[in-house]
């Protein structure tokens, strides 16, 4: 755990007490138990750091490239500059949500608490293959055609 290591070093420096090799594992173990007890999570801390970073540095070129990859889009340099400026402005604005305390609020992903709203499992006619393929940019032998994917 990085945090435990850091704390150990900090304690050692602050007190001037060197922690010998033989005590190392014991001290680390105690610090980790303590961190665990107060509900510290390394993953969460990393996430918070990431979010804090973006609030300071803003959307940079690397993040734009990463978002293009996630979105399967290639922007030309002009568009990238524009997107960077606009996303920064929009994210700044979205940050106002942090004014609200939502610790005890259940997330709401849908207007109604509706789950597994299944229809009867009856067999009914579905679309015909040729009707669906009519819109395909390329087709072959009753299938969608794509460039070679496996050499």
């Amino acid at each position, binding site marked *: 755990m990085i945090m435990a290591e850091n704390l150990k070093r900090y304690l050692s420096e602050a007190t001037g007490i060197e922690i010998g090799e033989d005590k190392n594992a014991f001290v680390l173990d105690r610090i980790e138990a303590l961190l665990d007890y107060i509900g510290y999570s390394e993953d969460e801390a*990393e*996430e*918070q750091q*990431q*979010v804090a970073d*973006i609030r300071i540095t803003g959307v940079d070129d690397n*993040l*734009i490239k*990463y*978002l*293009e990859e*996630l*979105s*399967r*889009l*290639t*922007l030309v340099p002009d*568009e990238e500059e*524009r*997107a960077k400026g*606009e*996303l920064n*402005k*929009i*994210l700044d*604005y*979205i*940050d*106002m*949500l*942090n*004014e*609200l305390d*939502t610790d005890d*609020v*259940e*997330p*709401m*992903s*849908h*207007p*109604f608490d*509706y789950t597994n*709203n*299944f*229809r*009867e499992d009856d067999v009914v006619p579905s*679309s*015909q293959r040729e*009707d*669906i393929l*009519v*819109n*395909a*940019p*390329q087709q072959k032998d009753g299938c*969608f055609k*794509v*460039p070679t*994917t496996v050499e």
Partner: protein
Amino acid sequence: MSFNNKTALELGQMIKNREISSVELTRAFIDNIEKTDKDINAFITVDAEGALKTAEDVQARIDAGEHLSALAGVPMAIKDNICTKGMLTSCGSKMLYNFKPPYNATVADRLYSAGAVVLGKLNMDEFAMGGSTETSYFGAARNPWDTERVTGGSSGGSAASVASGEAVYSLGSDTGGSIRQPCSFCGVSGIKPTYGAVSRYGLVAFASSLDQIGPIGRDIKDCAQVLSIISGHDAKDSTSIKTASLDFGGCFEGDIKGMTIGVPVNYFGDGLDEDVKEPVLKAIDTFKSLGANITELEIKITDYAIPTYYVLACAEASSNLSRYDGIKYGYRRKDCENLLDVYYTSRSDAFGMEVKRRIMLGSFVLSSGYYDAYYNKALKVRRLIKNSFDDAFEKCDMIISPVAPTVAYKIGENSSDPLKMYLGDIYTVSVNLAGIPGVSIPCGFGANNMPVGMQLIGKSFSEPKLVKAAAAFQNATDFHKMQNKYMKGGRA
């Protein structure tokens, strides 16, 4: 003969009374579209041949004594993100420039069964992302009250076609205000129904937990009539609520004595233009004079609705629009070397900048490391917004508010500043987040003699109550009957 001052219900009655045939009426509207739409650009597709054929069929069935619906034989049009079998459904995007759906949306099926004559498909912001219909691949739609100005959006074509007399009524879709705001900008009436009241089957998805299809018409009675046809459970949409169609029996007389209308005072503060505020405040007086109780309240949380909306809508959009891969339908870049190349180049060629920006923002808020801070946070605020409306409806039957902070602005005026454009949705998005219904009806004119609308908001499935209040207002006022030069000059 002029039909421009007639509503869909009146024209439906005239057809039944043999005062006019559906074919004559349809032909008159097609002629009018030919003349008018070069100015308005409300239509992406006009299907003259198909419409006339439908009109003949419907007329034959009416002549044979069949009762289809009160609107049988009346010509209408459909927003271009609602699937119509064999008829181009482009979503205003290059991505679907050639997409002819192999099936009908449930709403289209229900309208056809009710004897609707579909004139064609209507212009919109690309994939319904926008508030002005300027992001359409097919060019901006123009406001019939001033063609230098936007129609609003994203259902700009749906509102403009009705406002210009090119269609008697239309269907739009509303994810954050896309029916209500263009209605306000163009001086027509519209309803964003309760989430789950109308099937979304065949509506090209933008943000699935917010999207609803709804009607636009010359008055609220036409809208209610259309909504009674298209609403009701559909097994093909798992988010469609298992209830019967909405019933508006007894709502049109509009007796609202004793009804309590809430005025959220914080909706009338900073950011609302004076020329919009004034007609809405006058409308409140009208309701008072009609016997409604007016009570002031605050819904402070809606200040946070826009950031919440843009996080959630973009997150859902980034997922929904991942289906456009250049493989199954729509645009595909030629001569790609590998599959990834097909994805990247087809999507980059065919999506406009607003769509790209929203997909990227959505990808961001859903990505590892940012999910909790942005997406999950917004989901929690969504719950707070819903709770605030629940609390408000403990104190009143409905809420009255402006629809948009301004009247229709000039084409190009806001398109370079997305954030400014987003702020125009301040009064509408919270309704979608809460999943409740909202009605938009004309209540006056603002700067440059452009129409102003007001919004009535109610709890889930309170559409009949909202229609009753809107009908009471329209029975007492004439704002919905005002005609621009296209309405006056149209041959139809």
